[in-house]
């Protein structure tokens, strides 16, 4: 049974130290509200799985020292350039990095979604992405052993953490065409979701809404967090806060500056 309408603080309290958390890319429903609450709580030793890339969210969590391992196809702030905390911490070896490629992350989650231990994937042969992944393998395709193909293991996050437009009181969450959120949720042991608002009805009752709905079965808890993706943008609801992002990049160029950013925008305000 999903817990509905709990606080963001209670929501992130469900994430134990050491958990592996799956997160969407910066443009596809990031719960920055939960991310800040997680930093305030100071959960430690987290693994982060970017599905398949991340930016501000990963950078903030890495800068705040919560992350000990990261798997991603890319980490970037997009038009704001390199992710400063990620880049700094990587150079200092402060977390274990697993470079991947987008479809390998999707395939690994689909393996977990289907309950199989691995999934085959084309490409990759001859790349240093593959060379640095001792957890991947190259096999002869079972129906044509002369045809080499890469297999990647199932990715089973403990938690899928994301932001969505709407949930109902049963815990069904409307994700629209962001179906990577459904794959993440299916693959993860549980999903923790912040939403812009609660719907009074049942999302599964309406066949049009149902088509874009993640069933409550996968959802551990829902917290209402209006503008919960800020300073990132969220679908048609609001755009990226460009001034804030520019500030973030400027401050985070140094560890001291990043600490000032945390004080001002994360640690200071319980409700931020």
């Amino acid at each position, binding site marked *: 049974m999903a817990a509905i309408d709990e606080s963001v603080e209670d929501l992130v309290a469900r994430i134990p130290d050491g958990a592996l958390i799956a997160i969407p*890319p910066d*443009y*596809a429903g990031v719960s920055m509200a939960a991310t800040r609450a997680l930093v305030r709580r100071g959960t430690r030793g987290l693994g982060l799985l970017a*599905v*398949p*890339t991340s930016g501000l969210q990963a950078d903030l969590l890495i800068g705040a020292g919560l992350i000990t391992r990261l798997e*991603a*196809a*890319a*980490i*970037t702030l*997009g*038009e704001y350039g*390199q*992710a400063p905390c*990620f*880049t700094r911490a*990587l*150079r*200092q*070896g402060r977390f274990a*990095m697993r*470079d*991947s*490629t*987008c*479809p*390998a992350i*999707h395939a690994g989650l*689909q393996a977990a979604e289907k309950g199989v231990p691995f999934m085959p*994937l*084309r*490409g*990759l*042969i*001859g*790349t*240093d*992405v*593959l*060379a*640095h992944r001792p957890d991947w393998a190259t096999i002869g395709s079972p129906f044509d052993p*002369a*045809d*080499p*193909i890469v297999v990647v293991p199932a990715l089973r996050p403990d938690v899928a953490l994301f932001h969505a437009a709407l949930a109902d009181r049963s815990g069904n969450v409307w994700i629209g*065409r*962001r*179906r*990577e*959120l*459904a*794959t993440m949720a299916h693959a993860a042991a549980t999903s923790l979701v912040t939403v812009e608002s609660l719907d009074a009805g049942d999302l599964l009752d309406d066949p049009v809404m149902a088509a874009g709905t993640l069933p409550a079965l996968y959802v551990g808890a829902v917290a209402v967090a209006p503008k919960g993706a800020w300073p990132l943008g969220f679908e*048609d609801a609001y755009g990226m806060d460009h001034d804030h992002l520019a500030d973030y990049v400027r401050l985070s160029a140094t560890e001291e500056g990043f600490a000032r950013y945390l004080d001002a925008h994360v640690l200071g305000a319980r409700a931020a």
Partner: protein
Amino acid sequence: MADPRLLVATLARLLEGCRTVAVGALSPIPGAAALLARELAGGALHVTVLGSRKTNDFTDGGRELFDRAGQGRIDAFFLGGGEIDGQGNVNLVGTGGDYPAHDVRFPGTFGAAFMGFAVPRVILFREDHSRRVLVPRVAFISVPGTSPPGVWRRGGTVALVTGRCVFAFDRAKARFALASVHPGETRASVRANTGFDYDEPNELPETPPPTDAMKTLLDGPVARVIAETYPRFAAAVLGTGASNRRVN
């Protein structure tokens, strides 16, 4: 810096004959090129622009781009590169020092380690044509230029377009050949700024500028559509008025 409209026209010409092209995020020039090619093909080129709402028909989540490529439904794709070497290898991860603690870290491989195999026509585009980018040997292979026989690959790199020139890529030789130089560049200026060896033809054409028809399309329908995703680019480079914000 090369004229961005010349680059758009050049990339668009490389899409001739394709049925479908996908453009990655943060790629205004490839995006405009794809839209220009669509106009030139009378609409018979299916374009997806990541980051766009309108020029983006994906409804099956982040995997659909890669699934489509796996199905053979994507004919062309653009790749950038932190480093590109003379064998066509592309590095999107980092350089200097040892992986993963590179001195310079790039964002990462994104989907390139798959798309470079699944898409028949891969066009490398990197505006910065310097010995820093075009190196003898990349520090990390995100996509190999060529693959041994027996490795599944639908195609791969066909060309490299930079701010100075167009290289064609010969997969059999695993080697670039200069195909044309942009106005203002010469054999010597390209050679001086390229860190890898490549072939040169006897006759070296200049990269043709956009035709008048292309210019009309760029300033009209292409500008209108690309402005949804890259408003500052559309304003600064195409015909949608002036802007004092930087081009992204």
